[in-house]
């Protein structure tokens, strides 16, 4: 499947359908979270040719997947090494331009750019496609978001506590793909050879079909994302004692994982009753084999790793340990019946770049409780649905959930999007209260008018300060949005952009930004406003009127969103919004927004 830059595959030229390129220069976990999007695109248009542009180091990891037509591997590490070694710029240019040229030779109809950084923006600019969705660059070098949902992605990176949309669904939204009708397809497409190798590996350790097997991914990219060795050891011991036939597989690769798994085996093997039922498979499960192996296990217990996303794609249920930087609503593995056990620490989740030196959130997840969750999940169906999902939810809710811990259960809603339903433990913070509200708002304003059930904002009585600050912040945003609209109208009526008006508009924007910084629960609004303003794609100075009109829309959208949120007040009506009218929900839809297409 790897094209090695030629763009030639076994699919024949001249067949009907579009050529789609998905740019995903990110980590392995992200690639697997992206895969449902590929499946959805394939289901929608089987004749389309779909190619992925990914980092070379992850190309092998996609071997078990078959819904796309080819891969363009980008050797970013090698390019970096050659640049830093001082190789001559023309040779390096030729190499880089060669990769891009090979991609452009595909004669692309649709580019879906899911690489949310400067590299992504530049490649998005350099790839020629008749339509582009995702991040790109204007011709004069500014970042531009060519899809409202890529704007959303940039927004939620800065406001993750208020995001309730999993990356799996966000990728689909950016790509314009619908729900996956046959999520079991990857499992069915696994080769017999791969499955046979997995069976052989299990047989090597005396594991027979029918033996209950729990796999554990004990590693993670950095130390604070790793649940302690002692915790894993206790869970293993607990499970093996409770289930006399159960076998545990420890997964991992590299020396660090090997040492950790060796310690777990050693800790557990001191107990004679469980010795021999724990298998250390470190280094024996490259991703190509891992997928097949996971289809043979009953459950995966995992830190925040790519392995949990591989399991989700191939239908293996997981219990996911969520602490440090992992924020389960956005990155937990999406599969009905997956369970997330997370810490409710006030500081959780860590900021993505934080390096906490006291990760007490790891300790909140007690091994005994995690073992109980695993046992409860094992009692339910592999793919719980309907009543069996309800039973699982009840079973989890009946567990005694320690304080400081939350259990959430994954299901697909009527739109085919993932939802993580809290079964026990609930954080009492603005994020928990506002996430469903924002989810409904963004779906309505970014999702071409998809309306949800009504949502209400119910502030806990004990936290009256939040309600007051929320109202005040919305009121401030309303006043500033109205001021912005008024100033822009003055520009339009005056026939030119007066420097004084421009200065006053900058002041308005500054207050909007500041309001979001002072009271983060409204920051999604102010951040989205700033990003939308930045993304106005009018470059020709002779088109200043269009530029001003597009600017006006950004203030109008902000105002509409403020009014929408204000209408979600528990009591109904507006308490604090001065001077204006609460007109009910009247969001501006992107359906009417000019479509921005690439060159």
């Amino acid at each position: 499947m790897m094209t090695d830059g030629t763009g030639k595959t076994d699919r024949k030229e001249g067949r009907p359908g579009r050529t789609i390129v998905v740019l995903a220069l990110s980590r392995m976990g992200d690639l697997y979270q992206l895969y449902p999007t590929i499946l959805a695109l394939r289901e929608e248009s089987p004749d389309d040719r779909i190619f992925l542009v990914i980092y070379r180091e992850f190309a092998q990891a996609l071997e078990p997947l078959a819904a796309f037509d080819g891969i363009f591997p980008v050797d970013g590490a090698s390019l970096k090494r050659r640049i830093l070694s001082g190789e001559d710029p023309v040779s390096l240019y030729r190499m880089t331009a060669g990769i891009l040229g090979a991609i452009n030779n595909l004669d692309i109809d649709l580019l879906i750019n899911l690489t949310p950084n400067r590299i992504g923006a530049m490649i998005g600019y350099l790839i020629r496609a008749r339509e582009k969705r995702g991040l790109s660059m204007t011709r004069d070098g500014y970042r531009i978001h060519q899809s409202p949902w890529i704007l959303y992605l940039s927004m939620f990176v800065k406001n993750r506590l208020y995001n309730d949309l999993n990356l799996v669904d966000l990728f689909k939204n950016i790509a314009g793909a619908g729900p996956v009708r046959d999520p079991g397809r990857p499992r069915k497409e696994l080769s017999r050879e791969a499955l046979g190798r997995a069976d052989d590996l299990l047989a090597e350790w005396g594991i027979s079909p029918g033996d209950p097997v729990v796999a554990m991914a004990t590693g993670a990219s950095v130390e604070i994302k790793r649940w302690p060795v002692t915790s894993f050891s206790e869970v293993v011991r607990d499970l093996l004692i409770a289930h006399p036939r159960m076998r545990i597989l420890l997964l991992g690769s590299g020396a660090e994982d090997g040492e950790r798994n060796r310690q777990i085996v050693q800790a557990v093997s001191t107990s004679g009753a469980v010795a021999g039922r724990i298998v250390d498979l470190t280094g024996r499960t490259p991703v190509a084999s891992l997928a097949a192996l996971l289809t043979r296990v009953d459950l995966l217990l995992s830190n925040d790793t790519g392995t949990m996303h591989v399991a989700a794609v191939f239908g293996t249920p997981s219990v996911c340990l969520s602490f440090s930087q992992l924020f389960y609503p956005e990155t937990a593995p999406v599969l009905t019946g997956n369970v997330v056990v997370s810490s409710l620490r006030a500081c959780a989740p860590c900021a993505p770049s934080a390096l906490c030196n006291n990760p007490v959130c790891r300790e909140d997840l007690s091994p005994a409780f995690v073992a109980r969750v695993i046992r409860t999940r094992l009692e339910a169906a592999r793919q719980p649905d309907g009543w069996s999902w309800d039973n699982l939810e009840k079973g989890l809710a009946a567990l005694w959930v320690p304080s400081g811990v939350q259990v959430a259960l994954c299901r697909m809603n009527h739109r085919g999007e993932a939802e993580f339903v809290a079964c026990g433990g609930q954080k009492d913070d603005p994020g928990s209260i506002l996430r469903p509200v924002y989810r409904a708002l963004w779906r309505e304003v970014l999702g071409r008018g998809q309306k949800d059930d009504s949502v209400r904002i119910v502030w806990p009585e004990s936290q009256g300060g939040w309600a007051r600050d929320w109202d005040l912040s919305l009121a401030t945003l309303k006043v500033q949005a109205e001021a912005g609209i008024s100033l822009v109208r003055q520009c339009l009526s005056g026939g030119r952009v007066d420097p004084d008006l421009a200065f006053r508009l900058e002041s308005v924007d500054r207050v909007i930004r500041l309001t979001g910084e002072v009271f983060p629960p409204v920051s999604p609004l102010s951040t989205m406003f700033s990003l939308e303003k930045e993304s106005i794609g009018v470059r020709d100075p002779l088109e200043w009127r269009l530029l001003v009109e597009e600017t006006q829309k950004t203030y109008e959208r902000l105002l509409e969103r403020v009014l929408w949120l204000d209408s979600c007040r528990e009591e109904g009506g507006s308490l604090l919004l001065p001077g204006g009218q609460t007109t009910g929900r009247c969001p501006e839809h992107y359906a009417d927004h000019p479509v921005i297409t690439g060159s």
Partner: protein
Amino acid sequence: MWDSSKSRLDEISADADILRGNLRMLGPCALSNRILARQDEACGETDEPRVVKAKNGKPSMTVGGISVHSLYDPEKEGREWVREALSGGDLPKEGVLVLGLGMGYHVAALLSATSVPVFVFEPDIRRIRLSFSFISWDQEERWRGRIHFLSETGEIARLDRQIRLLVHAPSERSQKRAFSDAKKLFRSIQEDMISSLRILVVPPVTGGSYPVAVGAAHGLKAAGHRVSFFDASPFEGALLAIGQTTSLDLHKRQLQGIFSGFMDEMVMARVLAVKPDLVVALAQAPMSPALLSRLRDMGYPVAYWFVEDFRLTTYWERVAPLVHDFAVIQKEPFLSLLARSGVRGTYLPAAADPSVFAPRELSPEDRKLYGAPVGFMGAGYHNRQRFLPHLADLGLKVFGTEWNLSDALAAAMPLPNRRMTPDECARIFCATTVNVNLHSSVYHNGVNPDGDFVNPRTFEIASCGGYQVVDRRSLMEELFQTEGPDAELCFFDSETSCRREIRRATGDPEGRRAMADRARKRVLACHTYQVRMEEWVSGMLERGLRPASPALTGRWPVEGLLKSAGEDRGLSDFLKRFRPMGSVGLDDLVGQTLPGKDEISPEEATFLLMKEFSGGP
């Protein structure tokens, strides 16, 4: 050539349709943005251009009362200009570069008379805007695609070296500086000369040479070099702490030695990071003789600007032989002393940085704080402590450090012994009616009768448009007009003559203003850091200085890269613009690609992408 149906020439008024049509021809780009945004900031060299009606009814242009085109028949004049220009032989197929657009009659005639590409360089956006409002450059079929407008000097570097240069002399008269820069750059392309080096400027940790270093860095940058500044000022506290920690000389010397070694390594780390073609060090820069030797052995040339009095500070004897070029602010006998040590000294007087020292509107608060009938800004050297009390009754204010506050001057110091920033100094110079400038001396009780060099303050006050009375110096005459009705400065030799000149100037505001204007014009034309640095660096290049080797810097000769680019036209065109740099690395190749300017070409975007892969900016 005129679109008479659209332009109403009789009224000499601009036509918005013609302007719009020309902008559409240009397309969205930096130039059209600047024209529309009326960004005239870069046009400070000349007066506002005006459109006037010529005798034959056509619009002509004047600048500062001087005509840029004929006031009788500008079209005929344009044709004659072309006839003369073409008398030098056939034009190369690569085209011509015309310096100066004015209204554009000569350019239009050139387009009509030839078939080659015509590149027009006009640094004054206002003139382009006027031309674009009257001449439809997109109107003639045979002009289309052949006319290109450049408004920034750097754009000339992209042109082919075979292009012929033509200068519109009337335009040049009012834009000498910009045209000189353009010609220099064009010549450097034609002659394969280096006009942009990568330079690391090393200032002292503290002291009077620090702002000189900042000015030199600005000047080098303005001259087109790629400048890095090693800011040693954060270490000032450490240096001072050594003196305050112990009174034992032995300990002090030991600590200073350790500090010096530490700073050597800091500078070396910066050198290895920047890999400069040239290190410019200012007097008192934290570079020991040991470091200078190491740099010399490694192949990094160091140019040292000794802005000190060689009689007072003698470390030049150890430093001068170790550096590539040693510039000084004094002439004889210093140059002879250097020659005796085998060093070729370069005379390079001080200068001003007009980006800091410029006339400015001051708030009432600033005027109150910094303003006075008579002002002095400087450190409290011995001669100044003795001299300035004689002026106390004239409304004197004194600013600066190291003053003895117990004497009579304390009352004249609104900010006693506070170090003033360059910006504050500029405010003082602008707010003061008569600035007294007395060169420092640790021996004399007032004016040093044998003083030679001219201090930076002389140029800075003048650059601000401030009026000054200054003590006479032997090297002053070759820098300023010192005598006669066009004198640019007013001099004193003693307390008595100083008081006399202050009184005279106080009663003659017109004369004061006229002299200050003359001094400012002189400084802007001859005594900016840019002028000094251009002179210094070009002298070094003439004497054989070349960019450091690729083996040392990781930067590649542009000509070699152009050869490698071969038939790739887009890549070659992109690389050509870097020829004046001599050699480039990835940083250089992406350094000129900025958002908000022109359309980013695939070549520019690809190099930007490579930069991102390497770890970003």
